[in-house]
């Protein structure tokens, strides 16, 4: 079945091109978001510790802010989870386009 073999070859090449284009971009985006969050946390922690030492923040204020950072991290994680689901949807739609495109190229 030469047509089917051609189809398999075409789809492999097309999917590889698609993955190269998309996955690198998503990986960079996730790493960038994660690094920004860590950097912001470090700066905030330093300022809050100084605020606690100078009396600008009470013990209760300090604890609230620390726990607030934890709540914010949960919200950020939910955002990233949601964006990952959206990426999967986009990738799935992209794969569908590649499969259909390869099938049409080979069979029609």
């Amino acid at each position, binding site marked *: 079945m030469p047509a089917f073999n051609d189809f398999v070859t075409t789809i492999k090449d097309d999917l590889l091109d698609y993955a190269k284009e998309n996955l690198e971009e998503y990986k960079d985006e996730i790493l960038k978001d994660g690094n920004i969050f860590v950097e912001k946390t470090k700066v905030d922690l330093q300022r809050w510790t100084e605020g606690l030492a100078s009396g600008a923040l009470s013990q209760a204020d300090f604890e609230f802010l620390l726990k607030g950072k934890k709540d914010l991290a949960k919200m950020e994680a939910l955002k990233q989870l949601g964006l990952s689901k959206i990426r999967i949807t986009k990738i799935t739609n992209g794969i569908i386009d590649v499969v*259909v495109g390869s099938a049409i190229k080979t069979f029609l």
Partner: protein
Amino acid sequence: MTIKIRLLTSILTLALCLSLLSCSSISVFSPEAYKQAVDLKVESLELMVFATSSYAEYEEDVTYLKTELSKAYEFSLGRPNNELSAEQWEILLNEEGNLLGGFLKRWEEEDLLSEMFVTDTQKLVSDAFDTIIGLESGKIDSSILK
């Protein structure tokens, strides 16, 4: 020829199934939800500034804001496949938590709060709203799926 047609039909059917499956995993973009989040971010941050003054002076404003926030939460809860966004709102508004809900509760209980605490909680609340706005704006526009 018949085999080719069958094969092509199978591929297209598989593509259609995958397409339906991928569309149901998370809600599509809602301009209304996006606007609600942006408006409430601005209104919340503006009101928080006054927490260095007595709560009694702003009680009505806080009650109004809480009602608007509840509406946004209920709206997010009612949308299909929108659990992640609804959970974000829940964390932000939780009175036992340490973001907007907890802040407004503390203001009410303590009557006024310190300047540094207010400024820094504002930053956290601002970032928290941005996670909601960021997720909503990342969602796929329903017109693209049609």
